[in-house]
């Protein structure tokens, strides 16, 4: 009789792919050294999502003449020339894992200090061709435990692109803890087998909350009462062509909009009521949210709304925004300060 299994038997291990050992589109036969700087950390979440295969097929149904019913051959299905995705929502607890996610989405190799997203960086193109070693793709390993007969069914999604990353804090959600949510995409077939490896010991060394953000300046209004904020970094990729004999990608391009946008929800008081006029006047806001060793700065955030919530519990206003490079087009999109503990 088969053994029952639970989703609790899977752990996610996520890290940057060490291109020197496993180049883009490599065999995915994992070893510890395939994770850059031994960064094979557990992404411990409330629940682990499976890899989504929906986009990995090209399908067509062609009803041939002389029939009004399908036969098996009418279903055309090519597996392998699409994309696979994996979504996550992580309550951040480990600093290095957060730094790895920031590297993968911003393409900034060193995210241990101040992370400055300059126009020159965001506008630059990088090589994601098949076989390239650029240390900018990720490995997602969904690792089964040994109970229940699933140990031969680890799921390995290698050479994957972190297309977007949302960093958010909400005073009403999970004690205000920082969430990191996003989506990995791969143009290479996930491998299902016993990976033979596991995650490294993962410290809970970064547990920031919204309540620790002592500096909250938005549009010149200091120490604003902030209920929530989120920042989404989007840096999408597209799989390119195919190579080999099974339709897998010939690498990627990252040519879409490099976008940083988000929203901030603050108390609607006299100062923040002025934001309506600033929005109408097209005045960009500078946003700075900071604790001494952690900060999120958007020097020139163009407001895209002004949504007042007239709740009995108190009035708040949500201000959605998009980061720009400023009036002269030469300013930084964003600065994130070192994510010390």
């Amino acid at each position, binding site marked *: 009789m088969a053994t029952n299994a639970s989703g609790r038997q899977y752990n996610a291990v996520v890290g940057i792919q060490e291109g020197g050992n496993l180049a883009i589109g490599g065999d995915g036969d994992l070893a510890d050294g395939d994770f850059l700087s031994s960064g094979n950390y557990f992404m411990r979440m409330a629940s682990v999502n499976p890899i989504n295969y929906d986009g990995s097929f090209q399908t067509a149904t062609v009803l041939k003449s002389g029939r009004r019913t399908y036969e098996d051959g009418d279903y055309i299905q090519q597996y392998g020339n699409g994309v696979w995705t994996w979504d996550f929502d992580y309550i951040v607890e480990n600093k290095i894992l957060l730094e790895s996610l920031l590297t993968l989405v911003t393409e900034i190799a060193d995210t241990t200090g101040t992370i400055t997203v300059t126009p020159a960086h965001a506008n630059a193109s990088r090589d994601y061709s098949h076989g390239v070693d650029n240390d900018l793709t990720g490995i997602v390993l969904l690792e089964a435990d040994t109970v229940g007969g699933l140990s031969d069914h680890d799921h390995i999604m290698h050479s994957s692109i972190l297309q977007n990353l949302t960093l958010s804090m909400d005073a009403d959600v999970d004690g205000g803890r920082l969430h990191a949510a996003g989506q990995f995409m791969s143009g290479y077939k996930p491998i299902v087998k016993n990976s033979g490896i596991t995650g490294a010991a993962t410290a809970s060394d970064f547990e920031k909350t919204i309540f620790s953000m002592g500096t909250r300046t938005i549009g*010149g209004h200091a120490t604003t009462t902030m209920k929530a904020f989120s920042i989404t970094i989007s840096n999408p990729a597209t799989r390119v062509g195919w190579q080999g004999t099974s339709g897998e990608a010939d690498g990627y391009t990252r040519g879409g909009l490099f976008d940083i946008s988000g929203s901030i929800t603050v108390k609607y008081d006299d100062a923040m009521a002025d934001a309506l006029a600033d929005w109408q006047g097209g*005045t*960009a806001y500078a946003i*700075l949210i900071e604790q001494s060793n952690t900060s999120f*700065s958007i*020097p020139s955030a163009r407001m895209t709304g002004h949504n007042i919530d007239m709740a009995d519990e108190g009035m708040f206003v949500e201000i959605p925004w998009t980061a720009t490079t400023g*009036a002269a087009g*030469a*300013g930084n999109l964003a600065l994130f300060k070192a994510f010390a503990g």
Partner: protein
Amino acid sequence: MAEKTTKISKPKNTFKATDLYKRLMTNEGLLSLKQHESLLRGESVNLDSVPDKQMRYLITNNLIKQGE
């Protein structure tokens, strides 16, 4: 006949950078490089030549304040 024009000199507006300016403004934007560098040094700078859009941004966000 040429039209007679009278030049009226506007009062000079000088401004100083706030700490926020020094943290967030890593380049001159629509200021001149000289104005930007003077602001970073904490000097009072005349910003009459700066386009309205940039001035509105700097003032609204408390990146500069009126200097003496």
